[in-house]
């Protein structure tokens, strides 16, 4: 058994209808304990109605060094934003 507990990323849904939001991370030996710990660490002030926990190791992230190739090409393509249409007034806010 490893002496260090693995790291878990914690997601909390503030109220029904909203998305779960990443609120932070903590250590716990397994998922069940991670939820208990998340309850005690992150929902003390009535912040949540639902908790998700994900092992930090199980998250695959994009590499910061690849930021250029991944995101820069879309900088010059303003036509991808739907800003060239006239929206009738009666449609209201979109």
């Amino acid at each position, binding site marked *: 058994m490893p002496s260090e507990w693995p790291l878990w990323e914690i997601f909390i849904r503030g109220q029904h209808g909203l998305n779960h939001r990443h609120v932070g991370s903590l*250590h716990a030996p397994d998922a069940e*304990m991670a939820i208990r*710990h998340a*309850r005690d660490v992150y929902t003390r*002030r009535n912040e949540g109605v639902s908790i998700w926990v994900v092992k930090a190791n199980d998250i695959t992230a994009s590499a910061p060094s690849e930021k250029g190739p991944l995101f820069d090409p879309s900088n010059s393509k303003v036509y991808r934003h739907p800003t060239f249409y006239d929206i009738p007034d009666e449609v209201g806010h979109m």
Partner: protein
Amino acid sequence: MPSLPDMTTPNLSELAGKALAESGHVTVPAPDAGQEQFSEWLQRMGDNALILGHRASEWCGHAPALEEDIALANQALDLIGQCQLWLGLAAEVEAKGGDADRLAYLRDAGAFRNLLLVELPNGDFGMTLMRQFLFDAFHHTLLLALKTSSDSRVADIAAKAEKEVAYHLERSADLVIRLGDGTAESHNRMQAALTKLWSYTGEMFADDAVDQAMADAGIAPLPSTLKAAWEKTVTAVLDEATLVPPASAWQHGITGSGGGKKGVHTEHLGYILAEMQFLQRAYPGARW
């Protein structure tokens, strides 16, 4: 760092306010339950929460993991919050012009009515958890019964506290199982804790005249009637944790003149009070 009031449960002050507002036109307990006995019983409830809460708070900054540290501090705050409600009501019933603070800060050890179990030193983390579990199982059964108390103020406090204590029990039972059925080291520590603490469990279920008066008035169940439910919970958890209680143990606080409910405590309570009451004793009426 949040200010202290933020750390208590959200509806605590609301509930306290409600209890205060209702104090003018309350459901007065049946006349045969003397107010003095009622206040005595309320102090037992409040003192158990206060002293165990203080013990749990002693781990703040010292627990084996940050997450456990926060969980224990949360639990300590839950218990202190419950203590405010019980002792607030006790002071009101007593009607000597005091409040919860006077009861908490200005009584001497002999006037405290908590069980011996909750005042014992924390020991190692296993000992703290085992004590918490043995008490939680009793506390939860008791609060469930109090939700239907004939006194609406008692029922209100119990309804709020029961939710908190249900979580305390879930947590402590889970940890007792994990550590009892864990490594050889954790198993041995949990077994040692159980063996040591077992002789302090009998006091929880010993009835006396105050308990009888409360039961007659429908305010609270007789402690002895809670034992079967407690044993069921405890046996199931200990079995899963591969821990074995001593076959028979002399029980503190039942026979003889000792016992927390009678105000005859272990030497440990005085040290708790010395720390807890110092400020109010040294600077009477100090506020901040």
